[in-house]
């Protein structure tokens, strides 16, 4: 297990290094001058030149990369070019907000969709199965901005049951915070439910039709024991992989939801930083999302290997 972990972590570090090179080059390939972006198109050229020089963006690319990556390794993410505050401060707040929203969405969608998938598989071909499968698929197919607007209009403006503003008072208790996060997490639940439920349903059906299930049933085990101990354990493996990859999406890719609900997560922060050509923020932001993806995948691999010994044993060969 340790060797397996060490290999995965080493691979993750190489991936991160590659990501750092790509994002550095990509962000510098963005058109336009940093000083001009910060000061606006109508600024005096002298002011732009002075600013470019003081920001160090007129130095050779390699020098800038080494300077940045050196700082990054030491834990210094630099200062935001447009906001003049430490990047770490902005990123931590964005990441914290994104994690909160992702957690609320996860807590709702994961049990709900696994249950949906399991029920659909156990009731295959029935009305319930069709409702879950087709309903889930339709919800997934709808873009988030459509479901967001519909939910806001319905739950917040017409029925007034959920607050639209994610502007939680700073001293609010955890329940109030969760209450404010329910509405923005609902479109995510709609997007993810169909996907996770379908994967779970497929895994369940495959496991239900397998030889070991037939053996378990034939040797007289109770149906409940068969489902929980044999079917579910095998059926959930693809679900775990899907959930893990969705973690990255939930934490780095929610620009649309964050914009609709004006939620200051890391997605919106990255979007702003690209528009502003704020190099330190773009680079550190993408690296952070990269780390989240890698950690989520690593955790998925570990839980995968715990559920299925063949995977961790394969690492020894």
């Amino acid at each position, binding site marked *: 297990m340790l060797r397996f972990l060490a290999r995965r972590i080493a691979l993750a570090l190489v991936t991160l290094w590659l990501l750092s090179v790509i994002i550095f080059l990509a962000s510098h390939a*963005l*058109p*336009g*001058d940093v*000083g*001009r*972006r*910060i*000061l*606006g*198109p*109508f*600024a*005096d*050229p*002298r*002011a732009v030149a*002075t*600013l470019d020089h*003081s920001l160090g963006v007129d130095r050779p690319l390699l020098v800038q990369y080494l300077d940045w990556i050196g700082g990054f390794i030491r834990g210094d993410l630099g200062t935001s070019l*447009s*906001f*003049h*505050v430490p990047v770490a*401060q*902005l990123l931590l*707040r964005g990441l914290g907000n994104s994690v909160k929203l992702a957690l609320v969405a996860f807590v709702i969608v994961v049990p709900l969709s696994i249950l949906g998938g399991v029920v659909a598989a156990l009731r295959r071909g029935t009305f319930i199965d069709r409702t879950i499968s087709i309903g889930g698929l339709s919800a997934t197919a709808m873009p988030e901005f459509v479901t967001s*607007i519909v939910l*806001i*209009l319905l739950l*917040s*403006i017409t029925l*007034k049951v959920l*607050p*639209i*503003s994610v*502007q939680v008072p*700073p001293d609010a208790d955890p329940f109030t915070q969760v209450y404010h996060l329910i509405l923005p997490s609902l479109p995510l639940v709609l997007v993810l439910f169909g996907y996770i439920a379908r994967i779970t349903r497929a895994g369940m059906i495959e496991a239900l039709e397998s030889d070991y299930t037939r053996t378990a049933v034939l040797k007289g085990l109770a149906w409940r024991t068969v489902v929980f101990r044999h079917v579910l354990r095998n059926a959930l493996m693809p679900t775990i992989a899907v959930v893990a990859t969705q973690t990255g999406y939930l934490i780095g890719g929610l620009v649309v939801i964050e*914009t*609709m*609900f*004006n939620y*200051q997560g890391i997605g*919106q*922060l990255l*979007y*702003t930083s690209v*528009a*502003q*050509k704020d190099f330190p923020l773009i680079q550190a932001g993408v690296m952070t999302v990269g780390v989240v993806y890698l950690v989520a995948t690593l955790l998925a691999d570990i839980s995968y290997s715990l559920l299925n010994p063949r995977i961790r044993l394969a690492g020894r060969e």
Partner: protein
Amino acid sequence: MERDAQRRLDAIRAGRSELENAGIDELLAGRVSRRQFLRWGTVVGMSLPTLAIILEACGNTTNTPSGGNIKKGGRLNIGHQTPTGAMDPILTNDLGRLTILGQCGEYLSFSDKDLKLRPVLATSWSPNADGSVWTFKIRQGVKYNDGTTPMTVDDVVATFNRLADPSLKGNNALSNFAGVLSKGNVTKVDSQTVKFQLDAPNGNFPYLVSSDNYNAIILPANYTGNWDQTFIGTGPFKLKKYTVNDSVSLDKNPTYWDQSNQPYLDGLDFKFYDKEPAAILAFQAGSLDVYTQFSVSNGQGLLTDPNTTVIDIPTSAHRQIHLRTDQGPLTDKRVRQAIALSIDRNAIITGLWNGKAQIANDHPIFKMYPSSDTSVAQRAQDVTKAKDLMSQAGKSAGFKVTLYTEQVQEIPALAQLLQAAAKAIGVDITLNITDSGTYYDKYWLDSPLGITDYGHRGVPNTFLQAPLLSTGTWNAAHFSNPTYDGLFKDYVKAIDLSAQKAVTGKIEQLLLDETPLIIPYNYDFLTAVKKKVAGVETTGMGHVNFRLAGITS
């Protein structure tokens, strides 16, 4: 004056004493300022709601719903465009920041919605004979919102020498002061007087040190940066909490200098919005009391909402369609005139702006400016004449040209309307619409045809200089005309209105004839306010003044 405002004023006047009516006469004649009138009114025993109604009827204030009685206390939730950079008066170049700056900081004077300058930190000002030296008297007894530091003449001197300094990092005021004011030429005369020695005579100079030059907040002489830590200024509010890119909360400044105009509200809570639809939904759901600026395209619902007061201010913000004069297919002025004649301005204003814009005449001396010569005929659509001009120019077979512009608000739609109109006279326009950054970096100053967004200015000097002067830094049309350059100089040094008007008529005629720019409209600044909120004052520049705003009982 609007008819119902006049009716309300008449009704109030009927019930007032001779003394009170004399005060109203003074206000109507412009001999007393709004603040003086308010102060005087409360002394003679007039109630605040009555004063508010009189001020509104006299066109001196903005939204004060009739019967509104502002109570003391409370806070407002305000939706506002996300600031695009560090909160610092010197770096500011966007609405997101300037509106916030104006709550905590103040200017020598405030340029109101009618472009009148209201004394704030200066009590009076005057030029020398040729307008090359301006002397300002500075208000005494003013403290900063830290509660202790006094504001002095030295601060005023330091503020303007700083803003005129080209070596200052990120100095955004340079575009206002270049060629007007040089570093070191602002000096202290005595403890109450400051002298500005200008590079050249300038009749509109007071506007450049007013709230129209939003960078010009008076800061302590020893200011070195990090404004976002302190929000230091002499304004009616002070910093409570600022979360970058998210929100800012301000509290009432308990030591605000203007005793007779203390803020009603306990504080303001600004929440920043990147995208307009999210803010409009939040406003409609009741999470926001005020949304500082919205566009007609996204805010149709607000314009008709019975629970919303829309504050509608005409501004000089506009779109410039530049037609390159020195090379390419548009060098013949008859071709440029033909394109300008092909568009139906009224239809554009109705279609794109729902009427919330004013028709413009291809020059930037908009009718709202006191110096505008309104006798110059408005250019109207005339396709027959346009076709004649095309054939006179030998272009009756038409030609192809690419229009470059940016993905900002209604501009792409304007580009399409122009494309359709020009097609009728044989001009085949290809559209190249990019993000703002790419447009300004790559195409703006190097394109045969383009559309650029221009923000509001209290006087047309910048519009007449940078995009039109042969040496102008934003001259996308590459317009070079010695007569125009001479007229511009005459305009700038004209001090009084009649002297300015003598020149503006000539400038307007010249620009119509040469047509380096098509300016179809200048549009309004729209603010949405809940009915329970009163006293919010807005300006074309985007200042939203909450000093006398509050919640009605």
